[in-house]
Each structure stands twice: as C-alpha cells, then as structure tokens.
C-alpha cells in the first residue's frame, strides 16, 4: 500500500488484485483477520472485503452451495459468539474503571503496581477456593473437627495473634484429621491435603514461569539496551493521559529527561581518575553499609527469636500477656522492613549511578537482601527450633505466619499514612521545597511481593490463610488508590514501565516464590510431622503419604502402571539425570543459534548501510552528470516541474528526480559510446549489450511516464502503467541473461565480503517469502555492480587526487548506473507499495 492519505490507498490495480487473490485463498476467519489488520480506512476495508467475497463466490461452482452457505453461517455464528464472550469478559473485569482512571492520570508504571496487586489477589482467590473446597469442606461435612477445650473462649486478641481460640478451628493444620472418610466415595484426607497444596504450588510456579518468560521476551530480548535514548523517550509518550495538568507535567519531565540524556553523553567523558576513585569508594562504602544492615537485622531477629523461645512454654492455654508477647517478633520485623529501606534510599542519594535503571536495580537489590535475610532467619528458626520444642508444632508456625501477615498489614496502612499523607502535608504546607511526593512503585511492589511470600509459606501450615490475604489485598487496593489520588504526583521519569514489570515478575518468582516453595518442600521432605495433631500424624515425613498410597494402589492389579511410573520415573535418579543432560544439550544448541542470529543481524545492518551509501553515491553522480550537460537542460526543466508536482504525491521525491536524470544519461550515453570503446577494454562488450536492453527499458519507462502524466489529471493519479514496467523487467531479464556470466566472473574477483553479504541477503529474502522475488534477484547483481562502481570511484579518489573522477570513471560506470537506477527504482516501487 502506498504511503499516502486515507483515500484510495490501494494504489495500483494489480496490488489490489494480488491482495484479493491472497485473501480469497484463506478461510473466512483468516480473511477477516487479515482485512482488519490492513492500515487503511474503513471504507477501503469494506471495499476489499466485498470484492474478495464477490471473487470467491463467482469463482466457485453451484454444486455445493448449500453446504457452503451452511459452513459460512456456522463460522459467522462462531465469530459472533467469540465477540460476545470477549465483551462480556471485558465488562466483568475487576476494577476496570479505577485502573483506567489511574492509568490516565499517573501513567503505566504506577498502573503496573495495581495490575500486580490484582494478579496476586487472583492467586489468593484461587488458592482459597481450592483449599476450602478440597480440604475444609470435607472436614466440616464429616464433622470431625476437634472439640474446643472448655477453658478457652474467644478473646479479641485472637484476631491479632492467631492463637488461642483460633488454634482449635480449621484455620490451622492441627485441626485436620488424618482419616479416610467413608461415604459415597472414599476420601483420604491425607492425600487430599498433600495433593491440594502441592498442585496449587506447582500451578503457581508454572503461571509465574510462563508470564516471566513472555514478559522477558517482549520487554528485554527485543528491547533497546540504552535506557535514555531519545527515541525511547519520544515513543513512550502516553496517549491515554487525559488530565491537562498531568500532560503539562509530563511535557516538563520529558524535556528535563531529554536534556539530561543530552548532557549525559557529554558528562560521561569528563570524569577524571580521582573522581572515579571517589565514586568507587562511595559505592563500596554504601554496599558495605547496606549488607551490614541487612545482616545485622537478620542477627537481631535471630536473637529475638531465641529470647522468645526461652519465654514460650508448651502448654495448652496461654495467658493474655504471654500471647501478646508473641507479637513482639512480628512487630520488630515489620518495623525493620519499614525503616531500613529509608536508609537505603538515603545512601542512594549520595551515590551517583550512570543510569537511572542501575540506581533502581541497586535499591531493589538491597531491599530484597534485607527481606530475604529476615525471612531466612525466621524460617531457620521455624524449621529447627520449633519442632523440637512443641508437640504440635505446625500450628505454631502457622500462628507465627498469621501474626506476621496481620502486623505487616497494619504497618502497610501506617506506612501509607506516614509515607504519603504526611509527606504530602510537609511537602505542600510546611516545606514547599520538597514538593508533593511521588508514588514509589518499586518499594510498594516489593511490599506486596513480600506479603504474598508470607502467604505462600503459610499455606501449608494454615490452609485458610489466603482468606486473610484476600481481605488484606482488597483493602490495600482501595487504600493505595485513595492515597495516590490525594497525596501523590505522577512519577517524574517516564518510560521503562515494561522493563520494570519484567523485573517485578522475575523478583516475584526467583527469590520469593522459589524460597517459599523450597521451605514447604523441605518441611514436607525432611521434617517429622507432629504426632498428635494434623493430617500427617504418625508418619515419618509427609512425603511418605505417597509411599503408602502407592502401596495401596499396588494391591489392585488394574492400576499397576501407576506404580510402575512411580518406581521407575519419579523415584529413579537415572531419569532425572537423563532429563538434565538432554536439557543442557538443548540449551547449548539454542545458545549457538542465538549467536548465529546475532552475526546475521550485524551483516544485514552493514548491508543496509552500504545500500544507503550506494543510493546517495548514485544520486550524486547523476546530479554531477546532469550539471555537466547543458543542452538537455531545457527538457530536464520541463521534466522537473512535472516531477516536482508528482513528487508531492509519490513516496520518494528523489526517485522521480532520478527518472528525469536517467533520461539525460541515456542521451549522454549515446554520445559517449565511442569514447568508452577506447577507454576501458574489458568491460565494453557486455556494457554495450546491456545498454541495448537498457535503452529498450528506458524507452518503455519514458512511455510510461508520459502516460502517467496524461493520466494524472484524469484520475487521482496513482497507477503506474503495468505494461511499461513489465516491458522494462523483461528487457532487464534479457540483459541479465546475456551478462550473467560477466557478472558472476566479475563478481568472483571482487571482495569476498560482498559475496557473503549478497548470499546472506538472498537467503534472507528467500526466507522472507518476498513475492517480488524475481524482481529483486536481478537487483542484487545490479547492486554488486553499483557497489563496485562506488568502490572503484572511492579508490580512485583516494589514490589519484589529481585525476578528475568526472568523465572517465563515470562513463564505464554510467551504464551500470542506469541499470542500477532502474533496478533500484523497481525495488523501491515494490518496497514502498508493499507498505
């Protein structure tokens, strides 16, 4: 499609016919999809569609008309059904209006936080449904819940501590029985518990892996490395911002960022060695400090846990004071999580990273380190000390996690209050210099990832913990939204939202989810379940449930294959070894493929640059020749007025200019044939033979242009006549056949780099299934000639400065020039039409 207005864009009848032929060959759904993706106006699309349908129906016989109608109606119905499902699902999306409002006012980086929050909420809803459905309901139905001890009643404190009354409800692991319910179906609680939790974790892991991989591919592998490049900033202008103030702010920010990117390039060169040393010193110092802080926090939590350990007793009932004391550890942990990141931001202000991206990564890494160390210490305590101390230890761990979740929630709310509301007040009223705070996306995202990790660890010990999490995230969404709209301004630096999203998902997966999964796996594998409570009581470890089940299955002969799979696939080491080996080999193969593709990209880039140089070289030469040819100036002047009018309509003005100048060359060539015969011996005969064909082509093109001019006033001026173009093509092909031998021999003598480039290009074209294939392969050999002409000219210029490169060097090249010009015009015509 020629790149012009919305009007008749399908420029020439053949193009349209080609398109319609293509469309007719597809099925109706594919056809509709392809038409929808045409970048033309609605009228045009309708026109193309009616033509395609008319063509299709006219080309078919009447025999199977009823069947065809039926199938068409069916596909129409299916399509309509698909559309209605799509619109229904869109309207059911949770919080769609709010997200649109936030995106419109604050941009997509802030929106990422809310999208992630919604996503994690969905995880929790799914977990709740699964746990409640498969574990809790059977228990409640069969009425096997343990009795509450008589001297424990509901005190309000349970909501915070999770102990006491809650200990005896289905909230925790301890209340689940290990029996098999006989009813309509034999329902084994042990297996149900084990499989529900493990299947949920595996599904979570798969979803995370897939979304991480797709996000990585979209936003990292194909993305540009330079973070502050001007195009990135310009192209990421957010069109969905509707607020006037926000738009002005964005413009300001963009201007500042553009200026920074300009000055950064200058700044980078001007750092002296002493400054660099100082820089490295600051980096080293702040990293040391942050790691020290993180380790220190971990150690202090460790000692705190030990202290609590000494205080705690393994009795059934605890006094209120003792229960309240258990809140100490979560309180300290959340306090550290809130305060220490402020120190990290402070350090960040002193350091000067070369790019803003590295700054964010460094900050994120330190925060992650802090939280991981605290969580790690806590998990160590839970895995090692708690099982020895308590008889019924899993509910204890569950309670600890419950407390952590609740206190974390309280601190999140407080943090929103202090962080955003107070900063806003300080920024606007007390100290206006600070300004309105920005919404710190990275910190908030990390907070919800941490919260979700707690939930993931806690699912094994407390199956109904997702309920708390759902409430927490629900309230958090509205809280953050209100805080955002009242207190914060849009972020000052735009862009990088998609890459940050990838980083967040990656963070969600690798340290946090993988950590949670490994904790649960370690518990299931190595730790002994408590003996008097829970569904796995009496077993050596949780995983032996499977062993027992397999033994049961073994008794039935019809399911022996399950046993076989278990013995030889899941429990055998050879299987895992083989799989690992195969995967490693595949990774190596793909890696090599990637290296090969990288080299190909470099070569193709060089080729594009070369062709650009060729184009400008040819134009220069033509203009030189045109200047040195006075008698055809008048004709050329007439041409240029027409061409200048046409160039306003055509895609490339230089192309029509060269049309005129090529004619000039033709006249010149006729004059200079004798001189050429004397000047360059070898390349003459083939030149003459090509020039004959070339002249035919030239005449054909002249005719075409004259027709074009006459047709210009009549129609809207687009279709270049087909017959003339076909004639020139045929003429050129004839020329190619005659000098095919010449071109290959000449070609072999030339630079091997070019040959590889040409081969690469031809293979790339073949891969691309270019339908103008037969037009471009004669082009490529013409390209070789042009490149050689250019190389020769450049060498001559370099070697013999005195020798004027005007006439003599130009003349053997001029026929190649004409050929190349034609070829290039052809290629450009079809290239442009293809868009």
């Amino acid at each position: 499609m020629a790149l012009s207005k919305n009007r008749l864009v399908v420029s020439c009848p053949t193009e349209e016919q080609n398109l319609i032929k293509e469309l007719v060959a597809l099925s109706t759904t594919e056809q509709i999809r392809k038409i929808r993706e045409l970048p033309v106006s609605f009228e045009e699309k309708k026109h193309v569609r009616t033509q395609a349908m008319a063509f299709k129906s006219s080309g078919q016989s009447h025999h199977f008309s009823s069947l065809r109608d039926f199938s068409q109606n069916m596909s129409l119905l299916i399509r309509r059904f698909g559309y209605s499902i799509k619109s229904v699902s869109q309207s059911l999306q949770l919080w769609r209006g709010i997200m649109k409002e936030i995106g419109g006012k604050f941009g997509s980086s802030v929106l990422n936080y809310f999208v992630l929050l919604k996503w994690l909420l969905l995880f929790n809803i799914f977990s709740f449904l699964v746990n409640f459905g498969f574990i809790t309901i059977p228990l409640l139905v069969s009425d096997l819940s343990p009795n509450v001890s008589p001297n424990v009643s509901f005190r309000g404190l349970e909501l915070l501590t999770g102990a006491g009354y809650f200990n005896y409800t289905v909230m925790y692991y301890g209340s689940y029985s290990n029996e098999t319910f006989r009813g309509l179906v034999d329902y084994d609680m042990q297996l149900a518990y084990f499989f529900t939790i493990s299947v949920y974790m595996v599904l979570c892991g798969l979803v995370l892996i897939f979304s991480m991989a797709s996000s990585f591919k979209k936003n990292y592998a194909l993305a540009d490395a330079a973070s502050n490049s001007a195009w990135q900033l310009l192209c990421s202008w957010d069109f969905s911002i509707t607020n006037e103030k926000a738009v002005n702010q964005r413009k300001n920010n963009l201007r500042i960022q553009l200026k920074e990117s300009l000055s950064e390039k200058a700044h980078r060169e001007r750092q002296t060695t002493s400054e660099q040393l100082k820089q490295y010193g600051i980096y080293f110092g702040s990293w040391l400090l942050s790691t020290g802080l993180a380790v220190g926090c971990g150690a202090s939590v460790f000692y705190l846990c030990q202290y609590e350990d000494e205080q705690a007793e393994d009795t059934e009932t605890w006094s209120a004071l003792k229960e309240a004391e258990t809140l100490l550890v979560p309180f300290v942990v959340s306090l550290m999580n809130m305060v220490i990141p402020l120190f990290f931001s402070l350090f960040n202000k002193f350091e000067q990273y070369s790019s803003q991206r590295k700054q964010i990564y460094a900050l994120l890494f330190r925060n992650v380190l802090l939280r991981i160390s605290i969580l790690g210490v806590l998990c160590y305590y839970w895995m090692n000390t708690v099982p020895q101390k308590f008889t019924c230890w899993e509910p204890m761990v569950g309670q600890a996690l419950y407390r952590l979740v609740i206190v974390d929630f309280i601190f999140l709310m407080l943090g929103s209050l202090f962080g955003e509301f107070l900063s806003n007040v300080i920024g606007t009223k007390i100290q206006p210099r600070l300004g309105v705070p920005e919404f710190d996306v990275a910190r908030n995202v990390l907070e919800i990832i941490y919260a979700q990790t707690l939930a993931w660890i806690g699912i094994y010990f407390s199956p109904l913990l997702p309920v708390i999490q759902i409430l927490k995230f629900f309230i958090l969404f509205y809280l953050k939204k209100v805080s955002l709209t009242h207190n914060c301004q849009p972020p000052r630096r735009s862009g990088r939202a998609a890459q940050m999203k990838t980083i967040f998902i990656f963070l969600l997966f690798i340290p946090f989810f993988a950590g949670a999964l490994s904790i649960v796996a370690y518990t299931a594998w190595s730790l002994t379940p408590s003996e008097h409570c829970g569904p796995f009581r009496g077993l050596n470890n949780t995983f032996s449930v499977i062993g027992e089940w397999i033994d049961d299955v073994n008794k039935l002969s019809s399911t022996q294959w399950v046993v076989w799979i278990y013995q030889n696939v899941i429990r055998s080491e050879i299987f895992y070894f083989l799989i690992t080996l195969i995967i490693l080999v595949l990774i190596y193969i793909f890696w090599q493929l990637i290296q090969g593709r990288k080299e190909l990209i470099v070569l193709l880039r060089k080729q594009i640059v070369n062709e650009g140089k060729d184009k400008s070289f040819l134009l220069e030469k033509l203009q030189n020749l045109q200047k040195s040819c006075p008698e055809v100036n008048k004709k050329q002047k007439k041409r240029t007025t027409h061409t200048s009018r046409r160039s306003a309509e055509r895609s490339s003005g230089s192309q029509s200019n060269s049309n005129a100048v090529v004619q000039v060359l033709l006249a010149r060539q006729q004059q200079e044939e004798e001189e050429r015969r004397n000047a360059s011996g070898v390349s003459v005969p083939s030149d003459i033979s090509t020039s004959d064909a070339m002249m035919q082509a030239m005449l054909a093109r002249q005719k075409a242009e004259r027709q074009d001019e006459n047709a210009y006033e009549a129609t809207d001026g687009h279709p270049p006549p087909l017959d003339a173009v076909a004639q020139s093509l045929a003429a050129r092909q004839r020329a190619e056949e005659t000098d095919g031998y010449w071109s290959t021999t000449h070609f072999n003598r030339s630079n091997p780099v070019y040959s590889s480039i040409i081969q690469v290009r031809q293979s790339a074209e073949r891969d691309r299934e270019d339908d103008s294939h037969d037009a471009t392969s004669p082009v490529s050999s013409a390209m070789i000639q042009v490149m050689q002409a250019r190389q020769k000219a450049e060498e001559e210029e370099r070697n013999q400065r005195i020798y004027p490169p005007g006439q003599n060097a130009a003349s053997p090249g001029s026929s190649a020039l004409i050929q190349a010009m034609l070829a290039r015009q052809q290629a450009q015509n079809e290239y442009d039409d293809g868009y």
Partner: protein
Amino acid sequence: MGTTASQLAKDSLSEYQELTFLTKQEILLAHRRFTELLDRDERNHPNPRVPMEVILTLPELKSNPFKTRICQVFSTSEDKDGSLTFEDFLDLLSAFSDSATLEIKSHYAFRIFDFDDDGTLDYGDLEKLVNCLTGETEDTRLTSEEMRQLISNILDESDIDKDGTVNLSEFQHVISRSPDFVSSFKIVL
C-alpha cells in the same frame, strides 16, 4: 454505511465488530459519544461529518499534544480539514485500542508524526515532534543547539541507511525495540 439514528443497525454493528478491533460495547459507547457531538438536525443525516473543532472537545483528545494530527490522519474528507465521520471515528478508536496489532499502531504513529505528509520523517518533522512533546512556549522549548544535537542523536539511532530521514521501516524497527510503545499508544473512551 454509517448511521446516526439513535440505534445502530444490527448488521452495521456486526460489520463494525468484524472490521475493527473494537468490542460491541466499545462500538456502542463510541456511537453514543459521537451522537452527543452532533447537533439536533445533523443527527438525521445518513452520514454526518463532525468538524475538527467539535471532535477536539472530547476529553480524551482535548489535552493530547497530537490532537490535530490525529484528526487529520484519520479523516477521509476531501478537503483535508480533519473532520471525521462515524466510521473514521471508529477507525481512530480501533487503531488506538488494546487489541490493535503493533504494525497498525506503528503505521499510524508514523503518519501522525509525519507532519508534512511526505512519507518520511525528516529534520523538520522531528523538530516539530520534539516541540510538540516538550512545550510550545518560548521558555519551554529546547534551544536550537540542543535540538540539533538531539535530532542528530535520534538519526544516529534510527537512520540505518543514513539518508538523513527516517522512513517507515526504520521507524517500525525502532518501535519494535521499544516495549512501552504498545501500552502507551492507547486511547480508551
């Protein structure tokens, strides 16, 4: 053809659903918003055309720096005055919708940025683009030295064949390496 009766004909609706990227709700909403822009007597025309000034009163377009260019690109009028029929309006929303492909978006983005409509982004186009995005008044513009430097940076990055302009394929190449583009090239009613 487009209809301005207060109800959209059912087969028009299904045609719009098939040939654009919009869902039924979005089309109906667009129809409602479009008819709100018309005068009373225009509503009975078979295919009314809304002038550009009226279109630009829509809140989604009012503060957009490219509002006039958008109207000009999507307009099918003979006088190139930026006026839109309902079908042009649907084209606009379809290109800016969530489900439009990257090729469509980059194609229309190229045309929007091509201020002089010559098919390539040359120095003048890029200069106008930067001015559009950084502010029009004297104190908010970039200085001419900065502008020159910036545009030469831009051309270094994206002009692969070194002809001094960015054509459609080079632009699409740059866009494909900018993952934020698809999510930011969006207008939703």
